[in-house]
């Protein structure tokens, strides 16, 4: 199945470019491409509901929120001109330390995943792909979590409005 490698390569390359861009607008647009590739991977995993939700909610709603804020703040370029001029190895200490930690995390995860000695664990035949089954599980077994999620959304909505509101004392 070559689709896996195509979608995986698109996701990894787009994510790397998200990190490498200095203009946040390009970062957001590249992240949408990465999410599209991930949605293709979900289709390969027999999860069409998650794939469609990924496109509609993530690429459609959350990324548009990001794009809206990037354009609203009107401060596209990162203020790191003095950082970009110096050599990557002479950047500030925490930055180098964090990058080294991320690389070591990747090495550790890959080591842990590839040292398995058994047969490759291929996927079985059984898979849950119908939205009907998902909905039944969601509204019976996970009904409480579903209702709590609605409260969480309400709290986030109120919090976002309160946080982004202008302070009325600032104008007096």
């Amino acid at each position, binding site marked *: 199945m070559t689709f*896996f490698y195509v979608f*995986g390569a698109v*996701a*990894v390359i787009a*994510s790397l470019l*998200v*990190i490498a*861009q200095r203009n*946040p607008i390009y*970062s*957001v647009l590249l*992240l949408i491409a990465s*999410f599209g590739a991930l949605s293709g*991977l979900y289709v390969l*995993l027999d*999860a069409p509901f*998650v794939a469609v*939700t*990924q496109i509609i*909610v*993530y690429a459609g*709603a*959350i990324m548009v*929120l*990001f794009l809206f*804020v990037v354009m609203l*703040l009107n*401060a596209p370029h*990162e*203020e*790191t001109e003095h950082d970009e001029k110096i050599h990557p190895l002479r950047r500030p200490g*925490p*930055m180098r330390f*964090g*990058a080294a*930690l*991320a*690389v070591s*995390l*990747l090495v550790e*995860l*890959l080591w842990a*995943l*590839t040292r*398995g000695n058994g047969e490759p*664990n291929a*996927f079985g035949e059984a898979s*849950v792909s119908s939205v009907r089954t*998902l909905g039944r*599980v*969601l509204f019976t077994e*996970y009904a409480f979590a579903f209702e709590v*999620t609605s409260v969480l*959304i309400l*709290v*986030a909505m109120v919090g*976002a409005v309160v*946080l*982004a509101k*202008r302070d009325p004392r600032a104008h007096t």
Partner: protein
Amino acid sequence: MPTLNDYLVLSAILFAIGTAGVFVRRNLITILLSIEIMLNAVNLSFVAFGRSLGTADGQIIVFFVMTVAAAEAAVGLAIVIGLFRHRESLNPDTFTSLKW
């Protein structure tokens, strides 16, 4: 056919990219985008495990993770807007009021 391990390796690579982005970038919006990359890497491993076990639980958890990610993005961006109004900057190094 790609196996479960292949999907987990891809998820690990994406998660490491997100971690590196949080540490390396000096822009609050890019840092939030890196957190989204990490959440998606975990989502991918959830769906792969759910497919491997043949249950619906993995996809249900991804549904909840997406909801929490939407709430996180809304509140996080509201905080970013508030910070930008305060200091006219998106560089996290300029917010040092709580630094000892």
